[in-house]
Protein backbone atom coordinates (compact mmCIF):
# COMPACT_ATOMS: atom_id res chain seq x y z
CA UNK A 1 0.00 0.00 0.00
CA UNK A 2 1.16 3.49 -0.85
CA UNK A 3 2.45 5.57 2.09
CA UNK A 4 -0.16 8.28 1.58
CA UNK A 5 -3.01 5.76 1.48
CA UNK A 6 -1.63 4.31 4.68
CA UNK A 7 -1.63 7.77 6.25
CA UNK A 8 -5.24 8.21 5.21
CA UNK A 9 -6.06 5.01 7.08
CA UNK A 10 -4.16 6.24 10.13
CA UNK A 11 -6.11 9.51 10.04
CA UNK A 12 -9.34 7.55 10.00
CA UNK A 13 -8.14 5.40 12.90
CA UNK A 14 -7.21 8.48 14.87
CA UNK A 15 -10.67 9.92 14.25
CA UNK A 16 -12.24 6.65 15.36
CA UNK A 17 -10.23 6.81 18.57
CA UNK A 18 -12.17 9.99 19.26
CA UNK A 19 -15.62 8.81 18.28
CA UNK A 20 -17.30 10.49 21.27
CA UNK A 21 -15.89 13.81 20.14
CA UNK A 22 -17.35 12.92 16.75
CA UNK A 23 -20.86 12.35 17.95
CA UNK A 24 -20.82 15.45 20.13
CA UNK A 25 -19.87 17.55 17.10
CA UNK A 26 -22.75 16.12 15.09
CA UNK A 27 -25.15 16.80 17.96
CA UNK A 28 -23.79 20.33 18.29
CA UNK A 29 -24.75 20.97 14.67
CA UNK A 30 -28.39 20.51 15.64
CA UNK A 31 -28.56 23.72 17.69
CA UNK A 32 -27.84 26.27 14.96
CA UNK A 33 -30.28 24.33 12.77
CA UNK A 34 -33.08 24.67 15.32
CA UNK A 35 -32.23 28.34 15.74
CA UNK A 36 -32.48 28.95 11.99
CA UNK A 37 -35.71 26.98 11.78
CA UNK A 38 -37.35 29.15 14.42
CA UNK A 39 -35.95 32.32 12.88
CA UNK A 40 -37.09 31.68 9.32
CA UNK A 41 -40.48 30.41 10.46
CA UNK A 42 -41.19 33.69 12.20
CA UNK A 43 -39.79 35.75 9.33
CA UNK A 44 -42.04 34.05 6.78
CA UNK A 45 -45.04 34.24 9.10
CA UNK A 46 -44.47 37.90 9.94
CA UNK A 47 -43.91 39.09 6.37
CA UNK A 48 -46.66 36.78 5.03
CA UNK A 49 -44.54 36.46 1.89
CA UNK A 50 -44.67 33.39 -0.33
CA UNK A 51 -41.06 33.80 -1.38
CA UNK A 52 -38.19 35.75 0.14
CA UNK A 53 -35.02 36.33 -1.92
CA UNK A 54 -36.58 34.06 -4.52
CA UNK A 55 -37.00 31.18 -2.12
CA UNK A 56 -40.12 29.65 -0.62
CA UNK A 57 -40.26 28.75 3.07
CA UNK A 58 -39.56 25.09 2.34
CA UNK A 59 -36.68 25.98 -0.03
CA UNK A 60 -35.17 28.20 2.62
CA UNK A 61 -35.55 25.61 5.33
CA UNK A 62 -34.00 22.83 3.26
CA UNK A 63 -31.17 25.19 2.37
CA UNK A 64 -30.24 26.25 5.88
CA UNK A 65 -30.44 22.72 7.25
CA UNK A 66 -28.29 21.32 4.45
CA UNK A 67 -25.89 24.26 4.70
CA UNK A 68 -25.39 23.75 8.43
CA UNK A 69 -24.65 20.08 7.84
CA UNK A 70 -22.29 20.85 4.98
CA UNK A 71 -20.42 23.38 7.11
CA UNK A 72 -19.98 20.69 9.76
CA UNK A 73 -18.68 18.20 7.23
CA UNK A 74 -16.04 20.71 6.08
CA UNK A 75 -14.62 21.30 9.53
CA UNK A 76 -10.85 21.60 9.75
CA UNK A 77 -8.47 21.63 12.66
CA UNK A 78 -5.15 20.75 11.10
CA UNK A 79 -4.23 24.43 10.68
CA UNK A 80 -3.24 24.62 14.35
CA UNK A 81 -1.05 21.52 14.03
CA UNK A 82 0.53 23.04 10.96
CA UNK A 83 1.25 26.36 12.65
CA UNK A 84 2.82 24.39 15.50
CA UNK A 85 4.93 22.34 13.09
CA UNK A 86 6.20 25.49 11.44
CA UNK A 87 6.91 27.33 14.68
CA UNK A 88 8.51 24.59 16.71
CA UNK A 89 10.46 22.66 14.14
CA UNK A 90 8.06 19.80 13.44
CA UNK A 91 8.79 20.27 9.73
CA UNK A 92 12.30 18.93 10.25
CA UNK A 93 10.98 15.41 10.15
CA UNK A 94 9.69 15.91 6.64
CA UNK A 95 13.03 17.25 5.47
CA UNK A 96 14.91 14.21 6.70
CA UNK A 97 12.33 11.58 5.72
CA UNK A 98 11.18 10.69 2.21
CA UNK A 99 7.68 12.06 2.83
CA UNK A 100 6.09 15.23 1.45
CA UNK A 101 4.48 17.54 3.98
CA UNK A 102 1.62 18.49 1.68
CA UNK A 103 0.90 14.84 0.94
CA UNK A 104 1.04 14.04 4.64
CA UNK A 105 -1.38 16.79 5.62
CA UNK A 106 -3.80 16.05 2.79
CA UNK A 107 -3.90 12.32 3.52
CA UNK A 108 -4.40 12.84 7.23
CA UNK A 109 -7.07 15.50 6.61
CA UNK A 110 -8.98 13.28 4.22
CA UNK A 111 -8.59 10.35 6.61
CA UNK A 112 -9.72 12.15 9.75
CA UNK A 113 -12.64 13.83 7.98
CA UNK A 114 -13.71 10.93 5.81
CA UNK A 115 -15.83 9.15 8.40
CA UNK A 116 -17.25 12.45 9.48
CA UNK A 117 -17.96 13.53 5.94
CA UNK A 118 -19.69 10.28 5.05
CA UNK A 119 -21.73 10.31 8.29
CA UNK A 120 -22.82 13.87 7.60
CA UNK A 121 -23.69 13.07 4.00
CA UNK A 122 -25.94 10.31 5.26
CA UNK A 123 -27.71 12.73 7.57
CA UNK A 124 -27.99 15.09 4.60
CA UNK A 125 -29.53 12.32 2.52
CA UNK A 126 -32.12 11.86 5.22
CA UNK A 127 -32.85 15.59 5.31
CA UNK A 128 -33.05 15.61 1.54
CA UNK A 129 -35.51 12.76 1.56
CA UNK A 130 -37.66 14.65 4.06
CA UNK A 131 -37.35 17.78 1.95
CA UNK A 132 -38.42 15.97 -1.20
CA UNK A 133 -41.29 14.18 0.51
CA UNK A 134 -42.75 16.98 2.60
CA UNK A 135 -41.41 20.22 1.22
CA UNK A 136 -41.65 19.12 -2.40
CA UNK A 137 -38.02 19.84 -3.31
CA UNK A 138 -37.45 19.11 -6.99
CA UNK A 139 -34.26 17.02 -7.11
CA UNK A 140 -33.10 14.62 -9.77
CA UNK A 141 -30.48 11.89 -9.73
CA UNK A 142 -28.22 13.92 -12.03
CA UNK A 143 -28.21 16.74 -9.47
CA UNK A 144 -27.27 14.36 -6.69
CA UNK A 145 -24.46 12.92 -8.78
CA UNK A 146 -23.13 16.37 -9.65
CA UNK A 147 -23.47 17.40 -6.03
CA UNK A 148 -21.13 14.59 -4.99
CA UNK A 149 -18.54 15.89 -7.47
CA UNK A 150 -18.92 19.48 -6.24
CA UNK A 151 -18.87 18.36 -2.58
CA UNK A 152 -15.59 16.54 -3.20
CA UNK A 153 -14.31 19.76 -4.80
CA UNK A 154 -15.53 21.75 -1.80
CA UNK A 155 -13.72 19.36 0.53
CA UNK A 156 -10.46 19.80 -1.38
CA UNK A 157 -10.92 23.56 -1.71
CA UNK A 158 -11.49 23.89 2.02
CA UNK A 159 -8.27 21.96 2.64
CA UNK A 160 -6.33 24.18 0.24
CA UNK A 161 -7.76 27.34 1.80
CA UNK A 162 -6.72 26.42 5.31
CA UNK A 163 -3.40 24.96 4.19
CA UNK A 164 -2.64 28.26 2.49
CA UNK A 165 -3.73 30.14 5.59
CA UNK A 166 -1.52 28.01 7.82
CA UNK A 167 1.51 28.95 5.75
CA UNK A 168 1.29 32.45 7.25
CA UNK A 169 2.84 30.87 10.35
CA UNK A 170 6.17 31.12 8.53
CA UNK A 171 5.99 34.86 9.10
CA UNK A 172 3.45 35.44 11.85
CA UNK A 173 3.97 34.29 15.40
CA UNK A 174 0.37 34.44 16.56
CA UNK A 175 -2.08 32.92 14.12
CA UNK A 176 -5.10 32.12 16.31
CA UNK A 177 -7.01 35.35 15.63
CA UNK A 178 -6.37 35.10 11.91
CA UNK A 179 -7.58 31.51 11.73
CA UNK A 180 -10.76 32.25 13.64
CA UNK A 181 -11.59 35.40 11.65
CA UNK A 182 -11.14 33.60 8.36
CA UNK A 183 -13.25 30.74 9.64
CA UNK A 184 -16.16 33.06 10.46
CA UNK A 185 -15.82 35.14 7.29
CA UNK A 186 -15.57 32.00 5.19
CA UNK A 187 -18.66 30.54 6.83
CA UNK A 188 -20.71 33.59 5.92
CA UNK A 189 -19.27 34.14 2.43
CA UNK A 190 -19.61 30.49 1.54
CA UNK A 191 -23.33 30.57 2.26
CA UNK A 192 -22.99 28.42 5.34
CA UNK A 193 -25.36 30.60 7.37
CA UNK A 194 -27.89 31.97 4.87
CA UNK A 195 -28.12 31.63 1.08
CA UNK A 196 -25.99 34.21 -0.70
CA UNK A 197 -29.05 35.56 -2.55
CA UNK A 198 -29.98 37.26 0.75
CA UNK A 199 -27.09 39.71 0.24
CA UNK A 200 -28.51 41.17 -2.99
CA UNK A 201 -27.34 41.15 -6.61
CA UNK A 202 -24.28 43.39 -6.46
CA UNK A 203 -22.75 41.77 -3.39
CA UNK A 204 -23.53 38.38 -4.83
CA UNK A 205 -21.58 39.31 -7.92
CA UNK A 206 -18.65 40.25 -5.72
CA UNK A 207 -18.86 36.91 -3.91
CA UNK A 208 -18.83 35.06 -7.20
CA UNK A 209 -15.29 36.36 -7.75
CA UNK A 210 -14.14 34.76 -4.49
CA UNK A 211 -13.57 31.05 -3.90
CA UNK A 212 -15.78 30.82 -0.80
CA UNK A 213 -19.15 30.20 -2.43
CA UNK A 214 -17.79 27.02 -3.99
CA UNK A 215 -17.57 25.53 -0.51
CA UNK A 216 -21.27 25.42 0.40
CA UNK A 217 -23.54 27.67 -1.70
CA UNK A 218 -22.62 26.23 -5.07
CA UNK A 219 -22.77 22.53 -4.08
CA UNK A 220 -26.18 23.09 -2.47
CA UNK A 221 -27.50 24.95 -5.47
CA UNK A 222 -26.38 21.99 -7.52
CA UNK A 223 -28.13 19.59 -5.19
CA UNK A 224 -31.43 21.43 -5.01
CA UNK A 225 -31.49 22.03 -8.74
CA UNK A 226 -31.71 25.79 -8.26
CA UNK A 227 -29.35 26.38 -11.17
CA UNK A 228 -29.27 24.97 -14.70
CA UNK A 229 -26.98 22.13 -15.78
CA UNK A 230 -25.00 24.62 -17.83
CA UNK A 231 -24.43 26.77 -14.75
CA UNK A 232 -23.48 23.70 -12.77
CA UNK A 233 -20.81 22.67 -15.25
CA UNK A 234 -19.32 26.14 -15.52
CA UNK A 235 -19.44 26.35 -11.72
CA UNK A 236 -17.56 23.07 -11.42
CA UNK A 237 -14.98 24.41 -13.82
CA UNK A 238 -14.48 27.53 -11.72
CA UNK A 239 -14.36 25.46 -8.52
CA UNK A 240 -11.63 23.17 -9.81
CA UNK A 241 -9.94 26.22 -11.30
CA UNK A 242 -9.77 27.71 -7.80
CA UNK A 243 -8.33 24.44 -6.49
CA UNK A 244 -5.61 24.56 -9.14
CA UNK A 245 -4.93 28.24 -8.42
CA UNK A 246 -4.65 27.58 -4.67
CA UNK A 247 -2.32 24.68 -5.34
CA UNK A 248 -0.08 26.96 -7.38
CA UNK A 249 -0.14 29.66 -4.72
CA UNK A 250 0.67 27.09 -2.03
CA UNK A 251 3.67 25.87 -4.02
CA UNK A 252 5.03 29.40 -4.45
CA UNK A 253 4.46 30.45 -0.83
CA UNK A 254 5.76 27.15 0.52
CA UNK A 255 8.98 27.65 -1.41
CA UNK A 256 9.45 31.15 -0.01
CA UNK A 257 8.43 30.13 3.47
CA UNK A 258 10.67 27.12 3.73
CA UNK A 259 13.59 29.25 2.61
CA UNK A 260 13.08 31.56 5.56
CA UNK A 261 12.27 28.64 7.82
CA UNK A 262 14.84 28.28 10.52
CA UNK A 263 14.61 25.01 12.30
CA UNK A 264 14.30 26.22 15.85
CA UNK A 265 15.37 24.67 19.11
CA UNK A 266 18.69 23.43 20.44
Amino acid at each position, binding site marked *: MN*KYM*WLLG*MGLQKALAYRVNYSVAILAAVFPIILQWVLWQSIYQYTKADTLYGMSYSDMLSYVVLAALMAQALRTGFEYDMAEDIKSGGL*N*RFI*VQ*PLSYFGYRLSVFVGTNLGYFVATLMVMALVLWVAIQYWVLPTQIIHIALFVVSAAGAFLLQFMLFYLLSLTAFWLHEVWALFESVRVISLVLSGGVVPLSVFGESLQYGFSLLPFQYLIYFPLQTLTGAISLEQIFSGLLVQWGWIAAMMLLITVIWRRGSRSYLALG*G
Partner: protein
Amino acid sequence: MNVIEVEGLSKTFKFYRKPQGLSASFKNLWQRQVEYKEAVKDVSFSIEQGQVVAFLGANGAGKTTTMKMLSGILHPTHGKIKVLGHTPSEREEQFKKRFSILMGQKQQLWPDLPAIDSFSLCQRIYDIPTPLFKQRLARLSEVLNVSHLLDIQVRRLSLGERMKMELIAALLHGPELLFLDEPTIGLDFLSQRAVMRFLQQLVREDNITILLTSHNMADISALCERVLVIQNGQLVFDDRITQLQNTLGGLRRIHIESESPLHSEFLGRYGKVINNDVHCAELEVGDDVVNQVLQHLLKDIAVKDIRVSAPPLEDSLERLYTRRGQVA
Protein backbone atom coordinates in the same frame (compact mmCIF):
# COMPACT_ATOMS: atom_id res chain seq x y z
CA MET B 1 35.89 4.79 4.65
CA ASN B 2 34.71 8.17 5.83
CA VAL B 3 30.99 8.41 6.46
CA ILE B 4 31.09 12.11 7.25
CA GLU B 5 33.46 14.65 5.77
CA VAL B 6 33.17 18.27 6.76
CA GLU B 7 35.45 21.02 5.54
CA GLY B 8 35.41 24.66 6.54
CA LEU B 9 31.78 24.54 7.60
CA SER B 10 30.16 27.83 8.68
CA LYS B 11 26.63 28.92 9.38
CA THR B 12 25.54 32.51 9.95
CA PHE B 13 22.08 33.33 11.23
CA LYS B 14 20.40 36.67 10.71
CA PHE B 15 18.28 37.85 13.61
CA TYR B 16 16.61 40.95 14.96
CA ARG B 17 17.15 42.64 18.26
CA LYS B 18 14.40 44.50 20.06
CA PRO B 19 15.38 46.72 22.97
CA GLN B 20 13.14 46.80 26.01
CA GLY B 21 9.94 48.81 25.98
CA LEU B 22 6.91 49.75 23.94
CA SER B 23 8.48 52.59 21.96
CA ALA B 24 11.14 50.21 20.74
CA SER B 25 8.38 47.85 19.64
CA PHE B 26 6.85 50.56 17.50
CA LYS B 27 10.20 51.57 16.11
CA ASN B 28 10.81 47.94 15.22
CA LEU B 29 7.78 48.03 12.95
CA TRP B 30 9.66 49.88 10.25
CA GLN B 31 13.25 49.83 11.35
CA ARG B 32 14.74 46.67 12.74
CA GLN B 33 18.23 46.17 14.02
CA VAL B 34 19.65 43.35 11.99
CA GLU B 35 22.42 41.36 13.54
CA TYR B 36 24.33 38.32 12.48
CA LYS B 37 25.40 35.43 14.60
CA GLU B 38 28.01 32.99 13.48
CA ALA B 39 26.61 29.83 14.98
CA VAL B 40 29.26 27.62 13.41
CA LYS B 41 32.67 28.89 12.32
CA ASP B 42 35.05 27.08 10.01
CA VAL B 43 34.55 23.57 11.38
CA SER B 44 36.35 20.63 9.78
CA PHE B 45 36.34 16.98 10.77
CA SER B 46 35.69 13.53 9.40
CA ILE B 47 34.15 10.43 10.89
CA GLU B 48 34.87 6.86 9.82
CA GLN B 49 32.34 4.10 9.48
CA GLY B 50 31.56 2.32 12.73
CA GLN B 51 32.80 5.14 14.94
CA VAL B 52 30.75 6.44 17.82
CA VAL B 53 31.48 10.10 18.32
CA ALA B 54 30.21 12.38 21.05
CA PHE B 55 29.49 15.94 20.07
CA LEU B 56 29.80 18.14 23.12
CA GLY B 57 29.41 21.78 23.89
CA ALA B 58 27.51 24.19 26.11
CA ASN B 59 23.96 25.23 25.19
CA GLY B 60 24.04 27.37 22.07
CA ALA B 61 27.57 26.30 21.17
CA GLY B 62 26.48 25.12 17.71
CA LYS B 63 26.01 21.36 18.15
CA THR B 64 22.43 21.17 16.96
CA THR B 65 23.08 23.62 14.13
CA THR B 66 25.91 21.40 12.90
CA MET B 67 23.73 18.30 13.14
CA LYS B 68 20.99 20.04 11.21
CA MET B 69 23.45 20.87 8.47
CA LEU B 70 24.72 17.29 8.39
CA SER B 71 21.18 15.98 7.99
CA GLY B 72 20.16 18.54 5.36
CA ILE B 73 17.70 20.52 7.47
CA LEU B 74 19.83 23.67 7.24
CA HIS B 75 21.94 24.91 4.36
CA PRO B 76 25.50 25.78 5.31
CA THR B 77 26.57 29.38 4.69
CA HIS B 78 30.05 28.25 3.71
CA GLY B 79 31.96 25.02 3.51
CA LYS B 80 31.60 21.54 2.15
CA ILE B 81 29.74 18.57 3.61
CA LYS B 82 29.73 15.02 2.34
CA VAL B 83 27.63 12.52 4.26
CA LEU B 84 27.53 8.94 2.95
CA GLY B 85 28.80 10.40 -0.32
CA HIS B 86 25.83 12.77 -0.64
CA THR B 87 25.52 16.51 -0.18
CA PRO B 88 22.85 16.72 2.55
CA SER B 89 21.33 20.05 1.47
CA GLU B 90 20.29 18.48 -1.84
CA ARG B 91 17.92 16.30 0.17
CA GLU B 92 17.95 13.31 -2.16
CA GLU B 93 15.55 10.45 -1.41
CA GLN B 94 18.42 7.97 -1.62
CA PHE B 95 20.29 9.90 1.05
CA LYS B 96 17.25 10.16 3.31
CA LYS B 97 16.84 6.40 3.31
CA ARG B 98 20.37 5.79 4.58
CA PHE B 99 20.39 7.74 7.84
CA SER B 100 18.21 8.65 10.76
CA ILE B 101 18.07 11.58 13.11
CA LEU B 102 16.47 11.51 16.52
CA MET B 103 15.93 14.83 18.21
CA GLY B 104 15.13 14.61 21.88
CA GLN B 105 11.75 16.29 22.13
CA LYS B 106 10.56 16.09 18.55
CA GLN B 107 8.60 12.92 18.16
CA GLN B 108 7.49 11.08 15.08
CA LEU B 109 5.15 8.56 16.70
CA TRP B 110 1.43 9.31 16.67
CA PRO B 111 0.40 9.71 20.30
CA ASP B 112 -3.20 8.61 19.72
CA LEU B 113 -2.35 5.34 18.01
CA PRO B 114 -0.33 2.32 19.15
CA ALA B 115 3.35 2.38 18.17
CA ILE B 116 2.89 -0.53 15.78
CA ASP B 117 0.80 1.72 13.49
CA SER B 118 3.52 4.35 13.32
CA PHE B 119 6.05 1.58 12.63
CA SER B 120 3.93 0.34 9.74
CA LEU B 121 3.91 3.90 8.43
CA CYS B 122 7.72 3.88 8.58
CA GLN B 123 7.65 0.68 6.56
CA ARG B 124 5.71 2.49 3.81
CA ILE B 125 7.75 5.68 3.99
CA TYR B 126 11.04 3.83 3.57
CA ASP B 127 9.76 0.99 1.33
CA ILE B 128 10.94 -1.72 3.69
CA PRO B 129 10.08 -5.22 2.41
CA THR B 130 7.65 -6.89 4.81
CA PRO B 131 9.81 -9.88 5.88
CA LEU B 132 12.75 -7.57 6.62
CA PHE B 133 10.45 -5.17 8.48
CA LYS B 134 9.06 -7.95 10.64
CA GLN B 135 12.49 -9.34 11.37
CA ARG B 136 13.90 -5.94 12.36
CA LEU B 137 10.89 -5.02 14.46
CA ALA B 138 11.02 -8.33 16.32
CA ARG B 139 14.71 -7.92 17.02
CA LEU B 140 14.56 -4.26 18.07
CA SER B 141 11.53 -4.64 20.30
CA GLU B 142 12.99 -7.69 21.94
CA VAL B 143 16.36 -6.12 22.68
CA LEU B 144 14.67 -3.00 24.05
CA ASN B 145 12.15 -5.14 25.92
CA VAL B 146 9.03 -3.48 24.57
CA SER B 147 7.44 -6.33 22.55
CA HIS B 148 4.44 -6.40 24.86
CA LEU B 149 3.78 -2.67 24.46
CA LEU B 150 3.51 -2.42 20.69
CA ASP B 151 -0.30 -2.32 20.61
CA ILE B 152 -0.80 0.26 23.34
CA GLN B 153 -1.58 3.91 22.54
CA VAL B 154 1.73 5.74 22.58
CA ARG B 155 0.51 8.47 24.92
CA ARG B 156 -0.23 5.85 27.57
CA LEU B 157 3.41 4.72 27.63
CA SER B 158 6.01 6.04 30.06
CA LEU B 159 8.64 8.47 28.85
CA GLY B 160 11.30 5.76 28.78
CA GLU B 161 9.10 3.37 26.84
CA ARG B 162 8.21 6.09 24.38
CA MET B 163 11.87 6.92 23.85
CA LYS B 164 12.60 3.28 23.11
CA MET B 165 9.74 3.26 20.60
CA GLU B 166 11.16 6.38 18.97
CA LEU B 167 14.50 4.63 18.69
CA ILE B 168 12.85 1.66 17.01
CA ALA B 169 11.07 3.97 14.56
CA ALA B 170 14.41 5.58 13.73
CA LEU B 171 16.13 2.24 13.15
CA LEU B 172 13.55 0.21 11.23
CA HIS B 173 14.90 1.15 7.83
CA GLY B 174 18.39 0.03 8.82
CA PRO B 175 20.21 3.38 8.69
CA GLU B 176 23.99 3.30 8.28
CA LEU B 177 24.33 6.54 10.17
CA LEU B 178 22.49 7.74 13.23
CA PHE B 179 22.35 11.28 14.58
CA LEU B 180 21.15 11.37 18.16
CA ASP B 181 20.37 14.68 19.79
CA GLU B 182 20.08 14.13 23.54
CA PRO B 183 18.74 10.59 23.33
CA THR B 184 18.47 10.04 27.07
CA ILE B 185 17.08 13.40 28.13
CA GLY B 186 14.45 13.01 30.83
CA LEU B 187 14.96 9.27 31.18
CA ASP B 188 15.51 7.57 34.50
CA PHE B 189 18.75 5.81 35.27
CA LEU B 190 17.55 2.34 34.26
CA SER B 191 16.12 3.47 30.94
CA GLN B 192 19.27 5.46 30.22
CA ARG B 193 21.40 2.39 30.69
CA ALA B 194 19.08 0.21 28.65
CA VAL B 195 19.22 2.65 25.74
CA MET B 196 23.00 2.95 25.99
CA ARG B 197 23.54 -0.80 26.14
CA PHE B 198 21.30 -1.17 23.14
CA LEU B 199 23.28 1.41 21.16
CA GLN B 200 26.53 -0.34 22.06
CA GLN B 201 25.12 -3.60 20.76
CA LEU B 202 23.96 -1.91 17.59
CA VAL B 203 27.41 -0.54 16.90
CA ARG B 204 29.02 -3.91 17.56
CA GLU B 205 26.67 -5.96 15.43
CA ASP B 206 25.70 -3.64 12.60
CA ASN B 207 28.79 -1.46 12.33
CA ILE B 208 26.56 1.60 12.39
CA THR B 209 28.09 5.07 12.75
CA ILE B 210 26.71 7.30 15.50
CA LEU B 211 27.14 10.98 16.19
CA LEU B 212 25.49 11.94 19.45
CA THR B 213 25.06 14.99 21.58
CA SER B 214 24.35 14.64 25.24
CA HIS B 215 24.87 16.44 28.49
CA ASN B 216 25.05 13.14 30.29
CA MET B 217 28.70 12.25 30.78
CA ALA B 218 27.90 8.70 31.83
CA ASP B 219 26.35 8.13 28.38
CA ILE B 220 29.36 9.51 26.68
CA SER B 221 32.04 7.64 28.54
CA ALA B 222 30.05 4.42 28.16
CA LEU B 223 29.52 4.67 24.46
CA CYS B 224 31.91 6.98 22.70
CA GLU B 225 35.52 6.50 21.79
CA ARG B 226 35.98 9.92 20.32
CA VAL B 227 34.87 13.37 21.39
CA LEU B 228 34.32 16.54 19.41
CA VAL B 229 33.94 19.64 21.52
CA ILE B 230 32.48 22.76 19.99
CA GLN B 231 32.63 26.09 21.72
CA ASN B 232 31.22 29.36 20.34
CA GLY B 233 30.83 27.66 16.99
CA GLN B 234 34.42 26.53 16.76
CA LEU B 235 35.80 23.05 17.07
CA VAL B 236 38.13 23.20 20.07
CA PHE B 237 38.80 19.53 20.69
CA ASP B 238 38.81 16.42 18.53
CA ASP B 239 40.43 13.34 20.02
CA ARG B 240 39.94 10.20 22.07
CA ILE B 241 37.92 10.56 25.22
CA THR B 242 40.82 9.62 27.53
CA GLN B 243 42.85 12.34 25.88
CA LEU B 244 40.30 14.92 26.95
CA GLN B 245 41.24 14.49 30.59
CA ASN B 246 44.95 14.58 29.90
CA THR B 247 45.14 17.56 27.57
CA LEU B 248 43.64 19.85 30.11
CA GLY B 249 46.59 20.48 32.36
CA GLY B 250 46.95 16.82 33.35
CA LEU B 251 45.25 17.08 36.71
CA ARG B 252 44.64 14.35 39.27
CA ARG B 253 42.25 14.09 42.18
CA ILE B 254 43.40 12.74 45.52
CA HIS B 255 40.68 11.43 47.83
CA ILE B 256 41.73 11.17 51.44
CA GLU B 257 40.00 9.65 54.42
CA SER B 258 41.62 10.17 57.75
CA GLU B 259 41.23 9.36 61.46
CA SER B 260 42.19 12.86 62.53
CA PRO B 261 40.41 16.01 61.36
CA LEU B 262 41.66 17.47 58.09
CA HIS B 263 42.31 21.18 57.78
CA SER B 264 41.75 22.95 54.49
CA GLU B 265 44.59 25.34 55.19
CA PHE B 266 46.98 22.48 55.59
CA LEU B 267 45.74 20.66 52.48
CA GLY B 268 45.74 23.89 50.52
CA ARG B 269 49.51 23.93 50.64
CA TYR B 270 49.63 20.95 48.27
CA GLY B 271 46.88 21.74 45.81
CA LYS B 272 43.34 22.97 45.31
CA VAL B 273 40.87 21.72 47.92
CA ILE B 274 37.71 20.60 46.10
CA ASN B 275 35.83 19.69 49.24
CA ASN B 276 36.52 18.89 52.86
CA ASP B 277 34.16 17.10 55.26
CA VAL B 278 36.61 17.08 58.16
CA HIS B 279 37.42 13.38 57.90
CA CYS B 280 37.16 13.08 54.18
CA ALA B 281 38.60 15.45 51.60
CA GLU B 282 39.32 15.82 47.94
CA LEU B 283 42.38 17.55 46.59
CA GLU B 284 43.28 18.47 43.03
CA VAL B 285 46.95 18.51 42.04
CA GLY B 286 49.03 18.50 38.88
CA ASP B 287 49.95 14.99 37.72
CA ASP B 288 53.66 15.80 37.86
CA VAL B 289 53.56 16.33 41.63
CA VAL B 290 51.16 13.55 42.60
CA ASN B 291 53.89 11.33 44.01
CA GLN B 292 55.44 14.08 46.05
CA VAL B 293 52.12 15.16 47.51
CA LEU B 294 51.17 11.60 48.37
CA GLN B 295 54.38 11.11 50.29
CA HIS B 296 53.82 14.27 52.30
CA LEU B 297 50.24 13.42 53.06
CA LEU B 298 51.05 9.89 54.18
CA LYS B 299 53.71 11.27 56.48
CA ASP B 300 51.65 14.07 58.02
CA ILE B 301 48.16 12.59 58.27
CA ALA B 302 46.76 9.45 59.88
CA VAL B 303 45.41 8.20 56.56
CA LYS B 304 42.64 5.63 56.60
CA ASP B 305 42.15 5.48 52.85
CA ILE B 306 43.71 7.29 49.90
CA ARG B 307 42.92 7.12 46.20
CA VAL B 308 44.08 8.91 43.06
CA SER B 309 41.81 9.37 40.06
CA ALA B 310 41.34 11.47 36.97
CA PRO B 311 39.03 14.44 37.50
CA PRO B 312 35.45 13.84 36.29
CA LEU B 313 34.77 14.47 32.61
CA GLU B 314 32.47 17.34 33.49
CA ASP B 315 35.40 19.18 35.09
CA SER B 316 37.60 18.75 32.07
CA LEU B 317 34.82 20.03 29.91
CA GLU B 318 34.08 22.95 32.18
CA ARG B 319 37.70 23.97 31.97
CA LEU B 320 37.65 23.55 28.22
CA TYR B 321 34.49 25.62 27.81
CA THR B 322 35.61 28.44 30.06
CA ARG B 323 39.19 28.51 28.81
CA ARG B 324 38.10 28.99 25.23
CA GLY B 325 35.36 31.32 26.36
CA GLN B 326 37.95 33.73 27.67
CA VAL B 327 39.97 33.62 24.49
CA ALA B 328 36.97 34.21 22.23
